[in-house]
């Protein structure tokens, strides 16, 4: 892993076009390593598209993306998959695969083409399932789990990849507050181990706990900076037309409806 890279991910003048409409335009983003960055903004601002672009899952009309200091296109498919894990939003079909097998898919980038899972693979899967408190239903098919349970298995799948960069689109969907707290603890633990986490979040209260915010509006990045900066919080209020207020309660930044 190239620790030397100043940025875990960097997007340079990225543009994405869909049906003659610019979904993203002139987006420059720098994501520092070993930190949690949250992408926020109103509906349709292009948050998910930016995340997909950063993951190399979105064809770009303009610009390029660098992962750990190297353009995405120069990474081999498998090497990239070992460095960057992806958790999408509402993608998984109600599959009959057992949760354990689903999480084991996260180990694909580490396995030979037809090789059986190694002891390290099994250990990583067990660790990930424990981390998201999903170990208890490892034998159950994904299709038979509730929305929240399924989300925790899918999160474990992303964690099992043990990639230093983890991108998550709406990871809190279907999670109740205690498990949202668990999710934050998992993220913090990940960061402490040197990993980089980028997440698209609708829950502003959670997003404000992130180290950095990328504030988006209408396909452009309005502001990016540390959550501790007053300017970042002002940008957040502005992007929601000042219909929310960001205030500190018991040492934590919170968003309130006007």
């Amino acid at each position: 892993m190239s620790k030397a890279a100043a940025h875990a991910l960097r997007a340079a003048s990225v543009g994405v076009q869909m049906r003659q409409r610019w979904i993203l335009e002139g987006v420059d983003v720098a994501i520092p390593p070993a930190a949690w960055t949250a992408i926020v903004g109103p509906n349709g601002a292009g948050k998910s598209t930016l995340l997909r672009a950063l993951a190399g899952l979105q064809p770009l009309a303009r610009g390029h993306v660098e992962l750990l200091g190297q353009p995405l296109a120069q990474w081999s498919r498998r090497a990239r998959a070992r460095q960057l894990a992806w958790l999408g939003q509402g993608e998984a079909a109600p599959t009959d695969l057992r949760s354990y097998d689903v999480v084991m898919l996260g180990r694909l980038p580490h396995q030979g083409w037809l090789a059986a899972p190694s002891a390290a693979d099994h250990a990583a899967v067990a660790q990930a399932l424990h981390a998201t408190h999903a170990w208890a239903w490892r034998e159950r098919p994904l299709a038979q789990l509730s929305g929240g349970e399924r989300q925790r298995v899918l999160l474990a799948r992303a964690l099992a990849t043990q990639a230093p960069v983890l991108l998550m689109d709406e990871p809190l969907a279907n999670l109740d507050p205690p498990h949202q707290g668990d999710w934050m603890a998992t993220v913090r633990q990940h960061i402490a181990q040197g990993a980089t986490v980028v997440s698209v979040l609708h829950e502003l209260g959670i997003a404000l706990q992130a180290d950095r915010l990328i504030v988006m509006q209408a396909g452009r990045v309005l502001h990016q900076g540390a959550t501790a900066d007053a300017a970042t919080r002002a940008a957040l209020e502005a992007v929601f037309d000042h219909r929310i207020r960001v205030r500190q309660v018991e040492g934590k930044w919170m968003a309130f409806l006007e």
Partner: protein
Amino acid sequence: MPRSAINWLGSALVLASLGLLVLGIAVGSTGLESLWRLPHDAVARQIVWEIRLPRSLGAWLAGALLGLAGAVSQGLFRNPLADPYLLGSASGAALGSAVALVFAGAAPAGVLWLARLGMTGMAFAGAAAAVFLALMLAQGAQQGLRLLLAGVVVGVVLGAVRDALELRYPDILQPMKAFGLGSTAFVGWPACALMLGTWLLCAGAAWGLARALDGLALGEATAASLGLPLGPMRLGLIAVLALATGTAVAQTGLLAFVGLAAPHLVRSLVQAPHRISVLLASGMGAVLLLAADILARALLAPQELPVGVLTALLGGSYLLLLMYRRRSRDWSS
């Protein structure tokens, strides 16, 4: 628990296959008699060795190919209703076979090696073309319902082209009729050898590409993020689907629902990664079709029901049951 369930189902399928093969040798227009007289009667030997054994084996192999094709298409298109028939690939294969018949001017009983191979090749080409046509119409495999509709449209259109061919070349009318009903009666040793070779090839390829199917279950983006080369893997799986369907259709005609029912039955019994479930579905299809074939021979003995009629009846009922049970569950995804 799941490991043992998989082993249990695997062993049950092997045992059922062996038992049904023995039964398949014993059942026919001359009944068990042929079996008793086997050691000292040349005619009995011929009946068992040249007719019953190859057609029983052929039914098993055709079922194995269809079960495999069904499991691959359901995984590939992330659609529990995908099946070689509903995707139009079987109609494509039938059209390919009809074109081959026009050129060869031979009845399906003419089991010349080259003719068999040519017909299988044409059926393969037809099946592959139909799948691509359906994919083009549906603009990709993402939308399940759209893909199914496209498959139905392709099936109907290709069926109409086949009808037009039959009218223009009445010589092929009779063999194509038998073909449309689906029958294992014309399967001889060359057809068995061809299907066995294809099955080994397709099962091996499906086993090797099964990871793509597992990955796709988590969604397109996630599968891509796992470093799977989705493009080539998808093409490979479509080739497997078309080759398996084409080969089975060229030898036995149109046998509906085997490819749809086999993976469903397997999934209702065990939950396994595709590497295993694809092979189990293949075995399940083999057992289903062989059992149906024996039933078709025995029900009206010494007359014989075309096995395609029986699979359509049984499979149709199964699909209805499935729809009834699934009513409360998510249909479209």
